[in-house]
């Protein structure tokens, strides 16, 4: 009851409700533009959150995430081009429905299933986060170091095709985190006499550069996306009979979305495809899948919206971002001096509970706004891409400047954008670098504090039971990923060796 009161106060004493409306609309527009993923839509707004109060800021970012997941299904259904990665599974049956003249119904199913998934994901977030955070409250410096190492071990599962490249990316992130004043001795490191570097490179700058600027550069070599027919289409909600039919696949989406969301590195795309597959397996009409099955739209859309809630569980409870969008939300918290993790519920409960309440409002807003926003979305998707790129570019430079009125920081964003583009070009994963930047300070400061406590004895990390458990989990995760990669690489290496 007390928590409900805090949530209500957080919601009503700030601009959280308008922020959730703006965030959802922005997210739907962003998601509807092919190439603008939820994390990029969030990263574009990140600099704006600097001048907002913390509750409003995190609600705004969380609402963008929710809106973008629905927005991504609009071009997926109408032009067979997923606006977001997680909407890729929706294209299969969504576009087939559109070709059969049921595009409006497909969008209605996407909206309502997304609403169901979003609320279920939020419920899981509320139920699972605080117990996990309570456990983490007993953490000591060795345990925090081990937690950081556990977070870094996620790099293994985020590395895509090459673990080596993922680790390189992660270490480069750790290197960026060492720039600035040393956390313990106060010595300047890698500042080269530049005053702007004394306080270090802010994670927000790295995120905006790696996600948003690199995407703008990438859009220059991407083919132009198809135009949506200007004929205004009406969104059609499923009737009661169809609702009942969709119940089973939505339940599948909820279960898979919960598991995949909580698992760091998995995310909405995997959840959507797995749900699609399982929905087909358990459907009474599996033959319709691929030819315009309503269940083929409902299952992935429900699952990727569940992930919008459950992906925040490891972030809010342990401070570990398991996905791009969670990393950007983490950036929003760090801007306000809030460290997510076990202490968040102690030090800033209004932010955590306010976020819960804000996400609830955002889901409701998504349902309401989704009913009327289709025409503006079609208009936006049909704008000439050069104009869209120009506006997004202007928004980035203005937004980054507004953080600390520093053009040096705008330069850092350009530099990290260039780096991010190079990383995309050479298939080096971006998220490990973000993890390195975000977790670098936690790892270094707690590693050194632990050794100060133990007089340089490294066994302190093994004597602390929490630290030992986390390090063992990290090693297990790493070993499992290495084993999985070896299994995957061996057959392909054998093929490569064949003359």
């Amino acid at each position: 009851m007390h928590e409900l009161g805090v949530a209500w106060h957080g919601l009503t004493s700030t601009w959280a409700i308008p922020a959730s409306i703006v965030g959802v609309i922005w997210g739907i527009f962003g998601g509807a533009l092919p190439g603008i993923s939820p994390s990029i839509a969030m990263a574009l707004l990140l600099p704006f959150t600097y001048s907002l109060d913390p509750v409003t800021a995190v609600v705004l970012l969380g609402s963008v995430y929710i809106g973008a997941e629905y927005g991504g299904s609009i071009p997926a259904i109408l032009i067979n081009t997923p606006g977001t990665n997680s909407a890729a599974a929706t294209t299969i049956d969504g576009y087939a429905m559109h070709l059969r003249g049921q595009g409006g119904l497909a969008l209605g199913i996407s909206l309502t299933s997304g609403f169901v998934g979003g609320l279920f994901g939020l419920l899981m977030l509320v139920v699972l986060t605080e117990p996990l955070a309570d456990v983490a409250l007993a953490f000591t410096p060795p345990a925090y170091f081990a937690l950081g190492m556990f977070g870094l071990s996620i790099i293994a599962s985020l590395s895509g095709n090459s673990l080596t490249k993922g680790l390189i990316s992660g270490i480069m992130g750790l290197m960026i985190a060492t720039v600035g004043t040393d956390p313990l001795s106060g010595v300047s490191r890698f500042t080269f006499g530049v005053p702007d570097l004394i306080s270090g490179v802010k994670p927000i700058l790295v995120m905006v550069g790696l996600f948003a600027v690199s995407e703008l550069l990438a859009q220059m070599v991407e083919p132009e996306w198809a135009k949506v027919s200007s004929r205004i289409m009406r969104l059609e909600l499923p009737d009661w009979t169809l609702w009942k039919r969709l119940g089973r696949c939505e339940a599948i989406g909820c279960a898979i979305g919960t598991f995949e969301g909580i698992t760091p590195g998995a995310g909405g795309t995997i959840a959507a495809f797995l749900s699609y597959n399982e929905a087909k397996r358990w459907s009474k009409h599996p033959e319709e899948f691929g030819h315009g099955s309503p269940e083929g739209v409902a299952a992935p859309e429900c699952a990727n919206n569940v992930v919008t809630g459950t992906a925040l569980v490891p972030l809010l409870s342990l401070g570990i971002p398991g996905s791009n969008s969670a990393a950007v939300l983490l950036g929003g918290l760090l801007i306000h001096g809030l460290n997510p993790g076990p202490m968040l519920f102690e030090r800033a409960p209004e932010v955590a509970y306010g976020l819960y309440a804000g996400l609830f409002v955002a889901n409701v807003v998504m349902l309401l706004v989704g009913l009327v926003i289709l025409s503006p979305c079609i208009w936006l998707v049909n704008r000439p891409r050069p104009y869209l790129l120009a506006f997004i570019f202007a928004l980035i430079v203005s937004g980054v400047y507004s953080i600390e009125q520093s053009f040096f920081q705008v330069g850092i964003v350009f530099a990290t954008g260039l780096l991010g583009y190079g990383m995309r070009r050479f298939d080096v994963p971006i998220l490990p670098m973000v993890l390195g930047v975000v977790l670098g300070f936690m790892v270094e400061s707690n590693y050194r504090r632990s050794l100060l406590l133990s007089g340089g004895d490294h066994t302190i990390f093994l004597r602390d039971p929490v630290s030992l458990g986390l390090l063992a989990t990290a090693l297990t995760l790493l070993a499992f990923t290495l084993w999985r990669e070896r299994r995957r690489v061996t057959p392909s290496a054998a093929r490569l060796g064949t003359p």
Partner: protein
Amino acid sequence: MNGVTRALRGDTVVGLAALALAGVYAFFAFEIPHSFLADPVGAAGLPELYAIALALLASLLVAQSLASRARLRETVESGSDRIAASQHFRAIGLLLPGIGYLVLISSLGYFVTIFLLIIGVALYAGANLSLRLLSISVVGAISMWVIFDKLFNIPLPVGSLWLRLFN
């Protein structure tokens, strides 16, 4: 050149670039002064470790890609790659209007430079210079100025040129 060969050559490039970065980073890491407040690890401890780890991983990546390429034994054709390279240069060139923005903003001020930035990026991305583009850029510049200056109260540069002209 097929996709696999190109990817492996890309891995070699990434590995060599990371190796060079590790070298430069190590050079500056070893230059970090020792403090009287130093703990057992010291301010340079982890940076040195990161440099070594990066060098090892970069070497591993180079070795992996060279070994795989040796197995491939395919002839290298560079034609298609040259086309790809020009596209990448075009993409990176999108930063030029941004760099121009950084150079000009202190003298021309926010409003004029953001107007020029919108025009510059749109033209670079393929728009035609037209009255429509000019109008959209003016509207864009006004919108940005209203959002940041009026709504968020961010002190935006007025421009030294205008100050000199009108003072």
